[in-house]
């Protein structure tokens, strides 16, 4: 098994409270993994730790076998871990295309001098960036909105744009924090299809947090359940649904898998 990401005993302590306590995970390349758990269980915090947006109190993270604990957040992105946010965080006053371009450009090759001189290599590279971004927007079905300011997009499209933006960085691992939140059942079914498609097209590994059980159970090959910062279960959708601890802490009753 080709392990893409491994976290060992991650802990995040806030003043009186351990938001994440000794969390470990191993995710293999190409997998779609789910992370569920009651509100406040520490799911978002876990994502924050994995992307260095929050410093861990202890524990280690390895990505493609390399230790990345404590690496700066922007470098994590460059290494190939990208994410979306639970509360959408787009560059609101920039256009859809600009949002994607900014993410796409981390691979740019020109330097400051060629910017000033607008050298051929600069122009070539810029064109390449734009082309690549447009292509991505096409894939995500956002091409017609490319010149609209992000703040003016409908909510569903904003979520898609956030995914597009993360993809533009060229990640190997994509972390999605409640991608289906605020979507109605038809919209979330559509999103499920899209995520599968993206996984295949971009050879992604996906790790997602979601409260929509239909969504998680259908999409994820393996699911982890977090409660009070610790894992209480890990396994396939079927295993999770029938785990009594999970039912009492989280599900309330077994979900009828669709």
């Amino acid at each position, binding site marked *: 098994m080709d392990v893409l990401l491994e976290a060992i005993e991650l802990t995040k302590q806030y003043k009186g409270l351990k938001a994440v306590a000794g969390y470990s995970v191993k995710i293999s390349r190409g997998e779609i993994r789910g992370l569920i758990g009651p509100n406040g269980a520490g799911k978002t915090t876990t994502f924050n730790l994995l992307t260095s947006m929050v410093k861990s109190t202890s524990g280690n993270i390895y990505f493609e076998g390399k230790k990345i604990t404590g690496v700066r957040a922007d470098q994590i992105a460059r290494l190939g871990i990208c994410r979306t946010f639970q509360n959408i965080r787009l*560059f609101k006053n920039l256009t859809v295309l600009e949002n994607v371009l900014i993410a796409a450009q981390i691979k740019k090759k020109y330097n400051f001098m060629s910017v000033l001189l607008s050298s051929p290599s600069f122009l070539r590279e810029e064109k390449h960036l734009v082309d690549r971004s447009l292509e991505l927007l096409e894939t995500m079905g956002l091409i017609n909105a490319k010149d609209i300011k992000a703040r003016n997009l409908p909510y569903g499209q904003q979520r898609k744009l956030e995914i597009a933006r993360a993809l533009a960085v060229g990640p190997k691992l994509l972390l999605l924090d409640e991608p289906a939140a605020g979507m109605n059942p038809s919209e979330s079914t559509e999103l499920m299809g899209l995520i599968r498609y993206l996984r295949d097209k971009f050879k992604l590994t996906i790790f997602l947090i979601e409260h929509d059980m239909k969504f998680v159970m259908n999409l994820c090959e393996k699911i982890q359940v977090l409660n009070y910062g610790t894992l209480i279960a890990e396994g396939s959708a079927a295993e999770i649904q029938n785990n009594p601890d999970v039912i009492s802490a989280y599900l309330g009753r077994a979900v009828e898998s669709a």
Partner: protein
Amino acid sequence: MDAGLVEATNRQKQLPFKAAAGLILLFAVLMVMNFVLNGYYLRIVNLVGINIILVVSLNLTNGFTGIFSLGHAAFMAIGGYTVALLTMPVERKAVYLPDLPSFLAHVYLPFLPSLIIAGLLAVICAYLIGYPVLKLRGHYLAVATLGFMVIINVLIMNFRDITRGNSGLTGLQPYTNIWWTYAVAVITLYVIWRVLNSTYGRAMTAIREDDLAAEAVGVNLVSIKLMSFAIGAFFAAIGGALYGHLLTMVSPNDFSYSMMFGLVVMLVVGGIGSIPGAVFGAVIVTLLPELFLNKLERGIDLLGIHLPQMFGVSQVLMSVAIILIVIFKPKGLLGK
């Protein structure tokens, strides 16, 4: 930065022609001005140009990167003093600044290299101060940079051997003329426009919009913020030097609160985050008091009514005008 940046590549092709036409027009206008205007009006034209340099560069940090800096005047001071000291003839230093450290006492450089050295020195300072301070946000950053300005001011006031303290350095060579000023202004506009239409500029606006998200897509916050701050500092220093050599003096008072706020006023009145706005703000806020309000307060006959002398009226009217503009056009006169 606007939606059009996508078309940047296309535009680049027609650009040389448009740019050349613009430059020729500017040259012609300056030529005519130089010919018909007397020293006073030329000074105003110069002031306008210098303020364009300063406001456009301030706009890069405050408008495009969302770094609320009040440190521009400090960089102007660094530039103004550096160039004043480098271009002062050695013989004059001997009598005027007898206690100057010897490495300064014996140098004499022409204007252009001095300007560049001043700019680079400001860049170094920008990195030194920016590295710790740019971690702050919003108003906290604003006061910290304001503090930087005060500290530079206090240093200038107290290193009298070099700066003559509060008295400033006077009788500087009147190097600044409209050619220098507008050449630098054009370069400033060009550089900032190029930067904005590159990955650097986009990263800057991304930071302004949401720094956390920017980080999440691989933008190195520290280095991009520093770059923005440093580019601003570079042009501020050169603007400060041009300013000093226009007034033929530099003194700490020149580079203090009123200068700083004056620049922010131009920025906001014109329209923060827009290059034409910055230019427009610089022009209007420079000209309004100089050509109109100052005359009004000295007493004037208006449509047969004699208005008496009322010094202070220009500041009052200017303040009221600013407040009204901001209330009715909160995004500035040219803001979107």
